[in-house]
């Protein structure tokens, strides 16, 4: 799994643990660090908390969401090249948005971590990059809605994250680089090309292949569930 190779400061060891490594690495888990293993049931619990915030403005549920996600969101904001003061401002904005937008959360569609990630990502673009984030609007009359569901059994929020986690663990280090660096380090393909000493086109096609491989592996997992 290339644990010795760590040319880009990428926490492979932690990722291997989280994505389900073949050899258990219990050191970090034994120290009681939170978030190393996030299981489907926890995602379901967080989804229920979001729903409680949406339905009745449940402050205890919101506090629990904050305790669970705030350290992770903060780490994400700090990795993206923000200083601590600004990261905390953006963290605050993120959770204000979580409170405001909870009623738009649909647990059949998104798992809580993905939903909060998207909010933190947008807050980061707004505040740190000072750019606008163009987004589609499902209420737009020009919006082409999803076709009626075909009765296909969708994976529950938690199961989906589990499936993605295991699919990520099956990727090569090279493929994981091109996913990790944009998502977590906030690097553009051009920056990754410089960092890895590769032509831009190679980085883009590697990203496309990694995404494709992930999709296939998810489809295979879905088949396995039938």
């Amino acid at each position, binding site marked *: 799994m290339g644990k010795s190779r760590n040319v880009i400061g990428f926490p492979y060891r932690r990722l291997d643990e*989280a994505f389900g490594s073949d050899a258990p690495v219990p050191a970090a888990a034994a120290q009681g660090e939170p978030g190393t293993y996030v299981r489907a049931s926890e995602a379901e619990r967080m989804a229920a908390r979001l729903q409680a915030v949406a339905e009745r403005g449940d402050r205890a549920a919101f506090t629990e969401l904050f305790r669970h996600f705030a350290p992770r969101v903060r780490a994400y904001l*700090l990795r993206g090249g923000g200083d601590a003061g600004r990261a905390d401002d953006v*963290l605050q904005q993120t959770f204000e948005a979580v409170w*405001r937008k909870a009623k*738009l959360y649909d647990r059949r569609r*998104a798992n809580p971590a993905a939903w909060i990630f998207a909010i933190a990502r947008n807050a980061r673009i707004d505040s740190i990059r000072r750019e606008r984030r*163009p987004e*589609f609007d499902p209420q737009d*009359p*020009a919006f082409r809605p999803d076709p009626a569901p075909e009765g296909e059994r969708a994976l529950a929020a938690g199961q989906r994250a589990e499936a993605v986690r295991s699919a990520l663990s099956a990727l090569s280090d090279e493929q994981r680089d091109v996913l990790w660096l944009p998502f977590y380090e906030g690097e553009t393909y051009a920056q990754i090309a410089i960092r890895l000493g590769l032509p831009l086109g190679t980085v883009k096609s590697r990203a496309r292949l990694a995404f494709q491989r992930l999709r296939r592996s998810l489809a295979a997992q879905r088949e396995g569930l039938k």
Partner: protein
Amino acid sequence: MTISHHVGGDLLLAYGAGTLDEATSILVATHLALCPPCRAELALAEVIGGVMMESATTGTAPAESLPDPAIVGAGHDGERHGPAAVLSAQPGSFVLPQPLRDYAGCDAAQLPWRTMGGGVRQVALKTRGSGATARLLSIGAGKRVPEHGHRGAELTLVLAGALYDRDTWYRRGDVDAADSSVVHRPAAGPERDCICLAVTDAPLKFPALIPRLLQPFFGI
């Protein structure tokens, strides 16, 4: 009507990660408004982001700076249109989907189009950040844009009418991608003007003298 030419997986990933430049993000968001299958792909990209956020080193916990819900206003996120606006508009009555109307400030018919000659008109969209530039083009029915090559990538999203390029027809929602190896002369279909969004990350190359002389004036 289904879309047959989609944005690439690398663009969806970068849009999901939030690393795509603003101009290209407008194109991706507009394609997403018109393309349910690509929205499913974006949802997957966001699950990847969530998994990575969950599994990374958490570092120090923030000071208990829990936002006080009492001071967080109700807000109107995700509700840019009141119910009345949605009801009064006929489905498909807008040429420009919402992400584009946010930038253009109106729909295609009300835009201050500037002619570039040869039946081609344009409106540049104002974006922040470096890199790519976005413009709306209106190509008269049956007209062709001047032949040009590319120093970087050019993405063209068709919004109305049809665009013919390198033996392929592109229609509403379709994305035509060209890179530095391509020299082309896209044409609008004969029935009606073709309106499209073009995003380039480097100036174009015009072999013909007059377009080349005019290039600085159009900022293309």
